[in-house]
């Protein structure tokens, strides 16, 4: 994988040069160009930095909790007044509570934020992977096989895109939760609620990607290198996985990185509307929803989670933009 283009070409005797190695060389060098472009793009690197920062925080959460000696669930009556107001400057900052505490309960805000970042990231990333995954498979199937497969998939996509999405998310989530409750499952637990969210978000997410990938496959299918592979008798599987799929990675990666921030926002909005995660589970949406009633009394408690939410979404957006520019052969930067 680390070989340069020149060495690879020298290393092959003429009869050892099948099409796929030619495609691989071109593909790899495109990635190298893209990576170099991305590294030179200061804005994109800022986005990468922001994303990495929050991902690291989410991963190191247990360790940070241990160092600070806090956790997201324990009530701490000693850190709030009898009226529920945090004791200490800017929302109750102290040696014990580094970012202050939650009013009335005294739960540690840093621990809750870290836990919230982790929850929001997991739900949005898993939803994005499921939605893009289903979209890619159905998009390739529709574009490559054509005929009735294409008609069937395209009609389903058309119908689903006609659905009012946010409205349906809101209507569907409590129904599923209700159903799970009737099976004796606690649907408010983080795992089940997360599963419901991933399910409903990706059910309405995939049609967009199907449509885009289908279009890409339709145009790739007619390109010379696919014709060439077909002429020398390559199997359908080979054409699909070795010729077409490598050319789809760029759009797939760009779409995934740009849809994650959208899903982070969707999760937060659903929590605000009362159909997402619920306290004591922490997600960025839940923390904000809890903070609404205290917003003017303890502004830091309201603006801190808002800022974190904004920065994560911003980071992913900048990163996705940079990635798109870097992977676009036509772009001039």
């Amino acid at each position, binding site marked *: 994988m680390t070989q340069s283009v020149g060495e690879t070409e020298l290393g092959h005797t003429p009869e050892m040069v099948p099409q796929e190695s030619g495609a691989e060389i071109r593909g790899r060098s495109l990635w190298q160009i893209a990576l170099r472009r991305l590294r030179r793009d200061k804005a994109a690197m800022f986005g990468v930095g922001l994303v990495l920062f929050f991902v690291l925080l989410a991963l190191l959460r247990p360790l940070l909790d241990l160092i600070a000696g806090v956790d997201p669930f324990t009530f701490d009556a000693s850190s709030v007044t009898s009226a529920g107001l945090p004791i200490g400057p800017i929302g109750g900052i102290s040696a014990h509570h580094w970012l202050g505490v939650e009013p009335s309960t005294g739960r540690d805000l840093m621990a809750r934020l870290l836990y919230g970042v982790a929850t929001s990231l997991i739900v949005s990333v898993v939803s994005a992977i499921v939605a893009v995954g289903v979209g890619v498979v159905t998009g390739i199937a529709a574009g490559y096989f054509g005929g009735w497969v294409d008609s069937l998939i395209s*009609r389903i996509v*058309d*119908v689903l895109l*006609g*659905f*009012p*999405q*946010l*409205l*349906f998310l*809101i*209507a*569907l989530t*409590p*129904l599923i939760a*209700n*159903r799970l409750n*009737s099976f004796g499952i606690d649907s408010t637990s983080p795992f089940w609620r997360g599963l419901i969210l991933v399910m409903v978000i990706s059910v309405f997410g995939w049609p967009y990607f199907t449509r885009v990938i289908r279009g890409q496959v339709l145009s790739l299918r007619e390109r010379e290198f696919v014709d060439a592979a077909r002429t020398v008798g390559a199997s359908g599987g080979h054409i699909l996985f070795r010729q077409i799929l490598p050319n789809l990675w760029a759009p797939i990666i760009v779409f995934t990185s740009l849809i994650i*921030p959208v899903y982070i*926002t969707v999760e*937060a*909005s659903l929590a*605000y*509307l*009362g*159909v997402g995660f619920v306290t004591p589970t922490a997600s960025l949406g839940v923390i*904000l929803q809890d903070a*609404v009633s205290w*917003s*003017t009394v303890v502004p830091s408690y*309201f603006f801190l989670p*808002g800022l974190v*939410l*904004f920065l994560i*979404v*911003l980071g992913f*957006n*900048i990163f996705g*933009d940079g990635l798109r520019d870097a992977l676009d052969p036509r772009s001039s930067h």
Partner: protein
Amino acid sequence: MIRYILRRLLLAVLTLFVLSVVCYGLFYAIPTDPAAVSCSKQCTPQNLAGARHKLELDIPIQCQYLRFVKGLVTERHYANMTGPKDFIGCPSVGAATPESYNCAAPCLGYSFARDTGVNDLIGPKLPVTVSLTLYAAILWILMGVGAGIVSALKPRSLMDRVVMVLALAGVSLPTFFTGLTIQKFVVDQGYWPIRPDYFSPFSQPWFFLQAMFLPAFVLAIANAAIYARLTRANMLETLNEDYIRTARAKGLRERRVVVKHALRAALTPLVTIAGLDIGALLGGAIITEKVFNIQGLGFLIVDAVNNLDFPVITAVTLLAAAFIVFLNLIVDLLYGVIDPKVRLS
């Protein structure tokens, strides 16, 4: 052309049909008895049975669905479903009684939780959401397209950078967060002359513009940011086209080149997006309405979901889908008019 429209209309009907079946399927899946929602506290078994009977819940689900579809085209009265069974086994309507609810076509159903016809619930909310959406659309198109043009005319200038940074921030700010911030720190503190509320834009236009400005603005922010970025990208691309060079070479004034030649081509793709965005919001600007406590369709649906008020959920969902499908069609037809390259077939 006619064939194209017919095919699209068929797809629209298919979408609405699937959606309505899904809604009824989900309804059937809820373990909660909707009649219990309607018959409140002193719910004896007799009362419950009475409520079920009155709401036509004691007939099979497929019969309820057929009654709903039929109600969309003819007048429907909720009455004792005791008549003889038809060929698919659904009982027919018996004689109307004084207490049976009459619902004129298109009848969208009867709300269990609120004990009112769904039409009467939706009717007053519709102008609220429609006017809010259109107000916001005007704001985001003006702000977004304006900023995008300014940016594209002097790329990499200070102005361009400021606009693009603002646009990026606008895309990344969740609507409910900006909304809540404005509601709590501007409206609640009394910094805005009127609390956000609905006034008729026809009889009280000045009140409407003032009272609905903040919600419309919050609703417009994210879209304005997206439109600014799209307009800039499209403008930059068009300004590099050969025909723009030709226009300049033959000595047209820069203003005319930009407005007459570049802008038209750059804005064509935006028409599609604007149509879809407006269509998506007409079914309820859910978050904005909830944040500012504006009684539109979005507010109604959140309420209905919390009460498991199924007929209202179905009706608003179908209405929203109808808006989306309808605007999709309009946009596609309009596209054929403004973009000479597109031929509908």
